[in-house]
């Protein structure tokens, strides 16, 4: 039996709806929006898990709970090893810094130390194909160039647990292929992967298991084809 690398135990999380100065100290949940409701599952080491569901069903929130960004109201989440969340590439990018300075800043936000970042820099520059722009201020970059730099920095890391939230599909078609290949390579290297995506084709090809979520609850967990079928079924019922 393989060891467990992520264990989610009866996690519930709600977001406060009404902004009141008293809510932060009290536990009243009357006005809250329940984003995750009693979620339990485990991911074994080396497994690739996909999560599907319509927008707002709690997929991204679940990834953020696993990454430690939100702490659950009830239940707990355990993990073994360094976790990285790939989401919204280019967090903390600022226009007046150069591409290189931004890469250093972004890398340090993602938890790298100075020595490692200096070592990774040539790889980042060549992967992002920004050789002639890297020392220009970021405000001169196009949106696609920023996304490329973000992906280059984010993918230079080598986590034991990788959480991916819809980061595929940036840049031009050639770069898109390149980034997909890079992410697949990361998926292969990383011990454990949890992937949120709307690309069902990708899901079926790389995921060992797929979880279908709806309104903060797990509807189905298992084989990818059956999970996708469960997704379409619940969408039809909604219509």
């Amino acid at each position, binding site marked *: 039996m393989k*060891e*467990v*690398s992520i*264990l989610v135990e009866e996690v519930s999380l709600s*977001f*406060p709806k009404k*902004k*009141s*100065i008293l*809510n*932060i*100290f009290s536990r009243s949940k009357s006005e809250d929006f329940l984003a995750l409701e009693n979620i339990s599952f485990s991911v074994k080491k080396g497994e690739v898990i996909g999560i599907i569901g319509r927008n707002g069903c709690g997929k991204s929130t679940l990834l*953020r*709970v*696993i*990454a*430690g*960004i*939100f*702490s659950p109201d009830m239940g*707990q*989440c*355990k*993990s*073994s090893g360094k*976790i990285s*969340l790939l*989401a*919204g590439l280019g*967090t*903390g990018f*600022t226009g*007046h*810094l150069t591409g290189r*300075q931004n890469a*250093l*800043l972004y890398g*340090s*936000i*993602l*938890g*790298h*130390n*100075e020595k490692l*970042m200096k070592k990774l820099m040539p790889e980042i520059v060549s992967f992002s194909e920004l050789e002639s722009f890297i020392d220009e201020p970021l405000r001169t970059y196009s949106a696609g160039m920023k996304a490329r730099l973000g992906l280059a920095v984010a993918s230079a890391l080598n986590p034991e647990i990788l959480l991916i939230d819809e980061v595929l599909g940036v840049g031009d078609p050639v770069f898109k292929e390149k980034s997909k290949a890079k992410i697949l390579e990361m998926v292969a290297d990383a011990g454990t992967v949890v992937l949120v995506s709307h690309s069902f084709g990708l899901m079926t090809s790389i995921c060992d298991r797929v979880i279908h979520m709806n309104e903060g609850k797990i509807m189905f967990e298992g084989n990818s084809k059956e999970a996708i079928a469960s997704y379409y079924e619940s969408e039809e019922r909604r219509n």
Partner: protein
Amino acid sequence: MGDGQELQLKVVGERSSSILAPFSSFSVLFYHQFLIQNLIRKDIRGKYSNSFLGYIWTVLEPALLSAVYYFLFIMIADDPDPLYAVWVIIGVIIWTCFGKCLQSTVTCLTRNASTIHLVYLPRLIFAYASVGSTIWITFMSSIVLLPLLIAYDLQISWQLIFVPIAILIAAFNAVGLGLLLAPINCVNRDIEHTIRFIVRAGFFLSPVMWTWEMAIERGWASEVVIWNPMVFPITLARDGFLGKLTEFPINGIMISMTWGIAMWVIGTIVFNKYERSAVKYL
């Protein structure tokens, strides 16, 4: 076997106990020093990007402000102290440092909402990075005092070291209150508007345009203003500029230091305890 596997699993986002938070914050800051350095650099570069004068603004701003206050003062009082302009400059520099540290710590979670939603970091880092950049900019501003020393024919003495020390005390006095209010500001932005008002009002209630000596001349006034924790750092810096050890009463020093340390301990504990529920409001 089952037990061995379970042991490796750690609870995600487990935090140190609240009481120990002030101590563990040191290790957090040490561990993330590279990130803090980068955030400070971003702040400072950002502040003066796209400006022709750049860093000169750090010196120019307090100098121009003081010129205005000096003009105002000689209109109101006939016979000003010849060093009055310098006292105002020092007051402005130290008070601005306190005010900016306070405002940036109170808003440290709300300003960094997008980063907070994407990466888990000890959020204390954002507070200290903004305080660090404010301290750095204030050190730059205090360079304006060097030409003034020459202009007023004063000696460069070792006591000048009290100017940067006073800046650090001012920043420290702001951190605790800022950390205490930062989680509440996520829920309710009224906090940051209130703080902006307090910083403006405090400008007049602290010895920026007046000095501790003027308060002593009024007699009863000194007994009231001694409770203001900012009187000590500003007076310390002014005496340092003159090249003398401060004669500020020891109980006033105690009040200022006790405020700083007590607020820092309480603020760190509260921040550590509530930032997690607070970020859900961002």
